[in-house]
């Protein structure tokens, strides 16, 4: 049982290619069950959410994009740092129409490029503002916010906004803004989840990221192990493959008798090779899996969807989370 009822902000990171966006989307669906309302937020301007949900590109505006079992609702927002800066300036400096003029001049883009930390604090700041709606019990509050965050290589920097900003601005409004953001991100209201695959490099990156996040006192949530394949062979069968006591000749004779019209010895060679590959791969996965276990964090396994990810498979993944007690 993984009870996240006290968590308002879920940050999902992972190695590129591990399926962060997919996992973030499935988590948003899962947490919206039974009449809840969640927001899935994207920060890298990739329009990955729109692609996944097969909708037109998302504007900088909260939109309902899916339903969850039991009348739940999933909303989405693509946050753009430039727009967030205009919004920020408008809120704090009464900017009015000058905002769009500045944007046309490329000034906003310039400002966020000039100070990369500024970009991150605006993005995370937007998430924190949405979290605070819940604290204020606003009508438009969400039960949970899920961020499809930057990859593991950049996640600590992305979240550790005060460290970034203090190098830039030691005092002043943006500094105070960063401290407010840190008050949410560094608290138990937030959980940073990492998506990995059972392969050497993604697991290593995950371990490194956990260490970095913990050093920075950022709250690590769970590890999502993505694309886990069915165990087609049991332990006993795998041991036979390893020891070479498979009796492959007999097995291929059985296969031929069951209607596989091939030369039994050719078939035996092929099946044996495939069995060995499978066992090698399973052994590697077992090794990597125990390295993940050593982290001592909750882990959630998500099945490989071999036909490729579409909207339907997001619900399958959400169910897999639910079945493993994610609430």
């Amino acid at each position: 049982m993984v009870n996240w009822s006290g968590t308002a902000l879920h940050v999902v990171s992972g190695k590129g290619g591990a399926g962060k966006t997919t996992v973030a989307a499935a988590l948003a669906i899962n947490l919206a069950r039974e009449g809840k309302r969640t927001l899935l937020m994207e920060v890298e301007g990739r329009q990955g959410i729109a692609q996944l949900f097969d909708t037109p590109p998302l504007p900088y505006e909260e939109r309902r994009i899916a339903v969850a079992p039991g009348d739940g609702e999933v909303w989405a927002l693509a946050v753009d740092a430039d727009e967030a800066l205009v919004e920020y300036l408008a809120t704090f400096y009464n900017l009015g129409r000058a905002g769009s003029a500045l944007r046309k001049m490329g000034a906003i883009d310039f400002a966020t490029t000039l100070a990369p930390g500024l970009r991150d604090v605006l993005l995370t700041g937007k998430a924190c503002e949405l979290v605070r709606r819940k604290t204020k019990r606003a009508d438009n509050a969400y039960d949970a916010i899920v961020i499809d965050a930057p990859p593991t290589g950049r996640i600590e920097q992305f979240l550790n906004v005060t460290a970034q900003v203090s190098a830039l601005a030691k005092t002043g409004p943006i500094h105070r803004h960063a401290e407010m953001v840190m008050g949410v991100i560094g608290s138990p209201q937030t959980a940073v989840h990492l998506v990995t695959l059972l392969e050497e490099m993604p697991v290593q990156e995950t371990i490194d990221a956990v260490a970095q996040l913990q050093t920075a006192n950022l709250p690590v949530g769970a590890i999502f192990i993505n694309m886990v394949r069915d165990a087609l062979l049991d332990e006993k069968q795998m041991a036979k493959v390893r020891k070479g006591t498979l009796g492959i000749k007999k097995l291929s004779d059985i296969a031929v008798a069951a209607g596989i019209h091939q030369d039994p010895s050719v078939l035996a060679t092929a099946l044996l090779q495939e069995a060995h590959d499978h066992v090698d791969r399973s052994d590697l996965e077992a090794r990597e899996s125990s390295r993940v276990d050593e982290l001592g964090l909750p882990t959630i396994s998500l099945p490989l969807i071999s036909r490729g990810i579409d909207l339907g498979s997001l619900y399958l993944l959400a169910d897999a989370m639910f079945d493993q007690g994610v609430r």
Partner: protein
Amino acid sequence: MNNINAPQLYLDDVVLNPEIHIIVCTGSGGVGKTTTAAAIALRAAEHGRRVCVLTIDPARRLAQALGIEELDNTPRKVEGIQGSGTLDAMMLDMKRTFDEVVEGHSDPERAQQILNNPFYQSLSSSFAGTQEYMAMEKLGQLHSQAQADGIWDLIVVDTPPSRSALDFLDAPARLGSFLDGKFIRILSAPARGAGRGIGKIAAMGFGFFTSALSKILGSQVLNDVGAFVTAIDSTFGGFRERADATYALLKDTHTSFIVIAAPEADAIREASFFVERLNSDQMPLAGLVLNRVTEVNLPEVTREQALAAAQELAAGDAASKFTASLLELHAQRVSQVERQQEIAHRFTAAHPGIRVTSVRALSQDVHDLDGLREIGDLLSSPR
């Protein structure tokens, strides 16, 4: 993957061709770019070439295999090369490369001023695109060195793990136009700039903007930027020229691009973008390497046959059940292969003339030179 409908890419025609002096390995992140670059470099060296490989962010074990765990920004000789060739390897240190460019273009006093500037420090370590720019810069340096002393006859470059492979080509220009940009110029001399060129309304907006920026960031930041631009003004022309020269080098007939992808939708989409871009920029493309491809040992046995037989055997004794599992395993693999072929077809259908080779998925990551050699063999044998 035997039924990819595309001409075969013979990598040895590129890697062992004495006319090719630069090979650029590119593609989206996580497709095995760095490993491929290292394997190609090793293969060239073991066929007698004098090779330098520039890696960007190698996995720890690959770096160990090459003996370049130390990040010192200089090529180091790789031990254990068989044959008469040589292999040097290095890992890019982008900050240090940037520092060296500054030092190389300014007198010591001014260089120190720039290096100490907080804005420079932020730019050189975190500007999106600095890594790409510095990879390009380093390539230029290595190439000049090779031209001058003949130490290498082939340079193999890995490209940064950007979200988009195109960043490698675009980032230098982006950094250049950022540093040359109107805003940064005006910031270095606000009074002069505001009255000229950008128009009245914009000037008002700009004045507001700079004041808002100094309010939220603190005026220190803007001062730093101003000081940086003033200090770098005289050296930046040099930067630009160098970036342009390296860009021209990439179009040279002695250069060859290899695009790397895995049979996954995103990687293939990126590969397509990149190939189209190389084409429109008239850059020399050797072809596509499709990494991590699943192979099936007996394609004659279809998924349907395997599953039908497995179903029949599932109720039998232990041996029958075991056979059923093996057949299901086979069926699963056939499905995976079909799926990968379908994805690869998105590329080959759109780019029918591009040469392609494929490398089967290996069960382990590379730990040593033998592993790299094996990949080199796989890369150069027909798919």
